[in-house]
Every structure is written in structure tokens, then in C-alpha cells.
């Protein structure tokens, strides 16, 4: 059973790696977007899914990653890799400085406080000359979608391996204990403050890398698009749709929702948003614990799974 699962995952990975060789340009571009969204959903999974802190601040990390690459490449004429590293440093510093006060809040208060982070960052960046103020930065173009695709895929593999390690390590158990019961975790010896900040930073590192790759790919960043709060909403929906706190759930969520949204926007163009909303609402009602939970429970309960969830939401 375990071997079978591993083989399936490896086959899926091989297919994903091969996409640029047989896919059309449109498919590759869709792939880059879907892969980066999956990385963001996985990044959110670390702080939101495993640690239980529903962060709305991850788009701030994404923006910092974008601007790390933008500033390094445009203003300092440094290579892309250095820009990525710069973005990572920025987001780690940000996670520590803002995580310490913000992670003291719990539940809704944490969500509200982090909601402001991206907005504040957009306002700050709009006034920084080095970051091109509100006009933004134009990066040197690199017309190589294949490279961006494989980079995004490599990043997704890296974040997923990190989460797989989390799910079976002392650090990950500490995070799960914090999610399940923070006071109980502290009483058992978990350094909750340190663990939360580390989870926030780790989540930020991957979000920043995704932002950096995206910035170089689209060759243009401005405060509006880099610190976009709706991107944060997307990653949460995708992670929760797939199954927060699982190793593969958020990837499945990101891919399936990206595909659904792509099909909708080409089929019913103008009202795609409406249909997408319906899909999300249906998902929340029918499978509140994500796709991963269906896979686990369906064999036991069958179709009753859905009717029971409907009953539980008291519709």
C-alpha cells in the first residue's frame, strides 16, 4: 500500500516534469501559475494547516520575495539567484520582527492582525524610492517558460518534502500540539513562541521564493499586485479545499481549483467568479475537512459522508 502510493506519486512527478516537452505554451503557462499557487498553498499549510494560525499575512512574504528579486536585479544588477536569497532574508526578518508580536494573538484576532500586514507593506513600498515607489519595477525579460516551469516544480517538491519531514519530526509534532491545544503544549515543554515564529518564517521563505520566481517570470511588479490580499485568500481556499495539515492535500487543492477556475473562465468568461464561488461554497458544505479527509473516510462511510456533512452544517 505504501509502496503503491510512492510509485503513484513518482509517476505523477515524472509527468509533471515532462509537461514542458509535450505541452503547449498555454499549458506551460497555466502550469507555472498552478505550481506557484500550490507552493503558496503549501507554505500556508505550514503556519495555517499544521500550526493552526490562519495567516492572512503570507501575501506580504510573497511581495517581499517579489521585491527582493526586483530590487536586486533592477537596482543592483545582481543575478536572479542573489535576488531570491535577498527576498528570503527579507521575509525571515519580517517573520521574526512581526511574528513575535502578532503570534501572541489567537484565532480571529491573529487573522485580522495579519490581514493588515500586506496592506501596510504595500503602502510602505509605494514610498520607497529603491522599490520604484508606486510605479513599480520592470525586470530584465527572460523568455524561457520551460525554466520557470521547472523552477516552480522544484520549489513545490522542496516545500512538500519539508512538510513531509514536518509530519514525522519533533518540530512538526510541536507545531501540531500548538494547533491542537497551545497551553497544553507549553505545559508539556514545547517552546511555543520559538516554534510559532519558526513556522511563520518557514512558511514565509517558501512564499517569498514563489513571489521571486513569479516576479522574474512576469517581468513587472508593483505594490498592488505584489502585496495582493486576494492571493492570500486563494492560497487559504486551496489549502483548505485539499486538506490543511496534510502533506499532499494543498497540492491537490491548488491543482484542482486552478483547473476549475481556468475552465470556468474560458467557458463562462464573464460570470466565472460566480461559478467559482459556488464551487467553494459547495466544497465547504460537502467536505469541510478537505479532499484528504474524503480519501480517508470515504471507504468507511461511502456517500453518507456528504449527507452527514450537510446535516452537520444544519442547512
Amino acid at each position: 500500500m505504501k509502496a503503491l502510493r510512492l510509485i503513484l506519486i513518482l509517476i505523477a512527478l515524472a509527468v509533471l516534469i515532462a509537461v514542458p516537452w509535450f505541452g503547449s505554451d498555454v499549458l506551460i503557462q497555466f502550469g507555472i501559475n498552478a505550481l506557484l499557487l500550490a507552493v503558496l498553498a503549501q507554505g500556508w499549510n505550514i503556519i495555517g494547516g499544521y500550526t493552526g494560525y490562519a495567516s492572512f499575512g503570507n501575501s506580504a512574504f510573497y511581495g517581499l520575495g517579489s521585491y527582493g528579486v526586483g530590487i536586486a536585479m533592477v537596482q543592483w544588477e545582481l543575478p536572479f539567484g542573489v535576488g531570491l536569497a535577498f527576498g528570503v532574508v527579507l521575509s525571515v526578518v519580517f517573520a521574526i520582527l512581526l511574528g513575535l508580536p502578532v503570534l501572541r494573538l489567537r484565532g480571529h484576532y491573529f487573522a485580522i492582525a495579519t490581514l493588515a500586514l500586506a496592506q501596510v507593506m504595500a503602502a510602505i513600498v509605494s514610498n520607497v524610492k529603491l522599490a520604484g515607489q508606486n510605479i513599480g519595477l520592470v525586470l530584465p525579460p527572460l523568455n524561457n517558460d520551460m525554466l520557470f516551469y521547472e523552477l516552480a516544480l522544484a520549489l513545490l517538491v522542496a516545500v512538500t518534502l519539508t512538510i513531509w519531514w514536518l509530519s514525522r519530526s519533533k518540530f512538526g509534532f510541536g507545531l501540531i500540539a500548538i494547533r491542537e491545544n497551545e497551553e497544553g503544549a507549553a505545559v508539556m515543554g514545547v517552546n511555543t513562541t520559538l516554534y510559532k515564529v519558526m513556522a511563520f518564517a518557514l512558511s514565509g521563505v517558501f512564499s517569498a521564493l514563489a513571489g521571486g520566481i513569479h516576479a522574474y517570470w512576469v517581468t513587472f511588479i508593483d505594490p498592488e499586485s505584489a502585496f495582493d490580499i486576494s492571493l492570500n485568500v486563494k492560497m487559504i481556499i486551496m489549502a483548505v479545499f485539499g486538506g490543511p495539515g496534510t502533506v499532499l492535500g494543498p497540492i491537490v487543492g491548488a491543482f484542482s481549483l486552478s483547473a476549475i477556475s481556468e475552465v470556468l473562465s474560458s467557458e463562462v468568461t464573464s460570470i466565472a467568479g460566480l461559478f467559482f464561488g459556488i464551487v467553494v461554497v459547495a466544497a465547504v458544505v460537502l467536505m469541510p475537512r478537505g479532499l484528504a479527509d474524503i480519501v480517508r473516510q470515504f471507504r468507511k462511510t461511502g456517500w453518507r459522508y456528504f449527507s452527514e456533512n450537510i446535516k452537520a452544517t444544519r442547512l
Partner: protein
Amino acid sequence: MSAILDVQNVTRRFAGLIAVNNVSFSLQPKEILGIIGPNGAGKTTLISLISGTVAPSAGDILFEGKSINSLQTYQRARIGIGRTFQIMRPFPGLSVLDNVAVGALFGHGGGESQLSRAREMARAQLDFVGLGAFVDQRADELGGPGRKRLELAKALAMQPKVLLCDEVMAGLNHVEIDEVIDVIRKVRDEGISILVIEHVIKAIKSLSDRLMVLHHGEKIADGDPDTVLSNQAVVEAYLGKRRA
């Protein structure tokens, strides 16, 4: 004889209410100290003060001769203070085994770093408290008595030097109480000092080496269980004043 835990003139106020008022006592190595008192006497607050989830308004707490007032909750766990909660707080989404493994992974001395080793230790601890058959269940599927034992196993997996038990017998029937008493005695035989808060007077009388009574946050008696339970102030605290 040096006490392992020394509570010195500790006071805790919650706004206008004085939950614990100038309480001093000490716990000797390998001793079982029972604390009783009516509802609202400050028993749970006292345990929270020692484990660090509540900070004292005044006074000092010494562990092995050193003040632990400045230590955070997790640091107190690492020097060897384990506690259970009266309102059971399992990690609901985790299996019974992994709930206890968290104690082994962290806990006294910083815990075990290998998950597989921690699970082995957890399994042994669950067998010890009589939950060996439930290792794979989710913690929130356990019933009340099971959860009480789980609380105990989680604290024991931390390999503490001092175990603080907050009403681990409440809600259990006679047979279950006898089993828990048996477990606590065995824990003491392993060299752990134990502080037990309890409502069930009969149980605590037979278990404790020494008994202390709290009333309205103040210590009103401390000593041999039989003497303490026949003390006039204690009887009044529990049954009210005899009307002349």
C-alpha cells in the same frame, strides 16, 4: 531534608478576587501530598502557579532550591515539572499514542528527539496507566475515565520529577479510583514526588502521606491526614458551622 518543591508566601489575585492568599508549603522527595478544599478554594490556581500557566502576584516558588518565578511554562516542564489538567486537554486530532508521544518528545530535559523512540516510550506509559488497548484511537474518542488516564500518561511521559495531579479521580467509579490510586502509588515508588488535588476525600485520605486544606485561598490545615480531617476548621469549611 531538602524539599523538592518549596512554595513561599504565594499570592495570586484575579482583579478583585484573591484566589490564593499567602500560601506556603513544601513537597518532600517521594512524598504524596494531598490538597483538598471546597470549590473555589484556589486548588487549581495553585497548580497553575507551579506549572507556570499563571504568574504569582507575590511570593516565590523554589524547585530543587532554586527560584522558578522567572521561568516560562515550557522551561518548567523541561526541568521536571509535569501536570495534568482537571478539564482534560488532550490534543483532540491526534491518536492516543501521539498525544503521549508529545510528552516524551518534549518534557523533562528537552525530551527525546526521535519520533519512533518517543512512540515506544509512549506505548510503555499507556500500558502502565491501563490504556494499552486504545493507542490507535483518536484522543477525542476516549470517554471521560479514559481521558483522565490519558492526562496522567501524557504527564508521565515527560518523565517529571514532580507530578501535579489536578482531580484525576473526579468522575470515576470506585473500581476506577482504586486503579488510579494504584497507578499513583507506583509512580511514587519510581521516585517521583506527587501533589494531588482531589475532591474524593476517602480516596485522598488513603493515598496521601500528608494532607493540606485550602479554604478561600488560604491554607487552614496541613499535616497527617487523620488529624487534618478531624480538625474543627476543616470540618466547618466543608460542612458549615455547627449551629448552637
